[in-house]
């Protein structure tokens, strides 16, 4: 694996009043790596991710993402990353083409670049005949594949995927992961959260957050060895106590 660091955090913390949502987390993520970011509901994953994508300021600690400081250079962080979540992906009332044009513009691509990217993207996804259809009319699985591609329009070094496969059928879920693998092979770093523990096995390394801290961080194979179990699901159940 390439040792260029795409994410580097040191003692990153976030407090809300007396509540410490993220407690002194330090970790690195490398170029071309598929990094799984796991944890129970309420463990602090979302808060940590918000800091890494530049939309929430850390209370203390440092984080460099795609070469920029999240505290002082949040706008540059946003420009240099891709982001996709299950909840917000694209505009249902715009066509596929309009969505690509819109997000291309947001990411600062010029008209020619948008044109090139649109052609490339629809041909890769086999959506040539659907380009003028409303995104809202697409099946969920296609929406997810499309919004993954849209998150990559500006060739970011890293893309953040927040539960990208929730509720998607098992085959589409696997097709989605094949897209992830292919993108990582091209050198893009993938930072992904999921509640499907079989997907944790597809990552190069995973971290498991418990009560605001990173309790474990290693390759799935090593974690299973360390906890003497046969699946990531068991690792998760051993580590992540239910805290509320």
């Amino acid at each position, binding site marked *: 694996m390439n040792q260029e660091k795409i994410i580097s955090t040191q003692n990153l913390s976030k407090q809300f009043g007396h509540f410490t949502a993220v407690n002194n987390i330090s970790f690195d993520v490398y170029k071309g790596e598929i990094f799984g970011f796991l944890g*129970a*509901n309420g463990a602090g994953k979302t808060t940590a991710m918000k800091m890494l994508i530049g939309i929430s300021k850390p209370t203390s600690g440092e984080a460099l993402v795609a070469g920029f400081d999240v505290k002082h250079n949040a706008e540059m962080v946003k420009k240099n990353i891709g982001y996709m979540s299950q909840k917000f992906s694209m505009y249902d009332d715009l066509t596929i083409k309009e969505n690509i044009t819109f997000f291309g513009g947001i990411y600062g691509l010029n008209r020619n670049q948008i044109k090139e990217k649109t052609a490339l993207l629809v041909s890769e996804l086999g959506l040539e005949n659907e380009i003028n259809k409303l995104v809202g009319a697409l099946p969920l699985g296609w929406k997810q594949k499309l919004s993954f591609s849209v998150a990559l329009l500006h060739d970011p070094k890293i893309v953040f995927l927040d539960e990208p496969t929730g509720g998607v059928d098992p085959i589409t879920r696997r097709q989605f992961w094949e897209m992830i693998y292919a993108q990582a092979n091209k050198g893009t770093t993938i930072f992904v959260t999921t509640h499907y*523990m079989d997907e944790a096995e597809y990552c190069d390394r995973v971290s498991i957050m418990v009560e605001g801290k990173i309790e474990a961080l290693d390759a799935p194979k090593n974690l299973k060895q360390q906890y003497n179990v046969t699946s*990531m699901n068991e690792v998760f159940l051993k580590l992540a106590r239910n805290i509320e």
Partner: protein
Amino acid sequence: MSIQVENISKSYPKTLAVSDISFEVKEGELFGLIGPDGAGKTTLFRILTTVLLADEGKATVAGLDVIQDYKEIRKNIGYMPGKFSLYQDLTITENLNFFATIFGTTLEENYDLIKEIYIQIEPFKNRRAGALSGGMKQKLALCCALIHKPKILFLDEPTTGVDPVSRKEFWEMLKRLQKKGITILVSTPYMDEAALCDRIALIQKGQILKIDSPENIVSHYNKTIYKVRTKNKHQLILDLKKYPSHYSAFAFGEHVHYIDQNIHFDPTELEKYLKEQLHSEIDIAVAKTSIEDVFMDFTMLNQ
């Protein structure tokens, strides 16, 4: 029969949501509707809980007709919709009292039934529902659905977006409710939860692909699945898909599940092929079939 569905169909202006579906749920049964987003699960739930009319077909719940006896049905069922639908501005206590009053009962009257779940959220009883975490909202919604001691519980994707620990606890809770005599119809996109039901219906694109016990669905499956592992999983999937007699190849935890078209398939031939493709640390063995394997195969055959 606790629930009886006969030839139910429902279309929306542009989509066929449920197409000619029939099934039965026995009294005291824990019955699962297993299928992805958009399969028609929610439509079916809404029809059975009398909040949506079917275009065609007939259904009874607790022996009552979903159209004629809708008022009576509502007294006998608890419904937890997929989308959180309690009052965000009311506290836990206020929500519980509200639903108890609607059903002409009190929190105390059926406290036995909800006690175990309620004590987990009791420390936050004066917190507004909108300010609760996902797991707590889920527990409150379940309490509200149980407050009038329903005969049948309808749970529409209660565990979607919930982490594995909370999911496990939730299912343990369902098992205990079942032991108290409550019939449960539950839907989920998680295939591992299917194994915890007495019987399941695999549903996709508005149609039921199969109804049986999870054990039977797995044991009646007649294809041999091989689990294959090499050092590079992504390349392995790509190469397996290029193998001339391949039927399917899907990532499955740390392995790739592979099915061959040929019943006389020889794993050593495949191993030879993978070596030629420069794979290392090759491991091929027969896999244990899971519901997810079966579901994926049905999906492929259904397309």
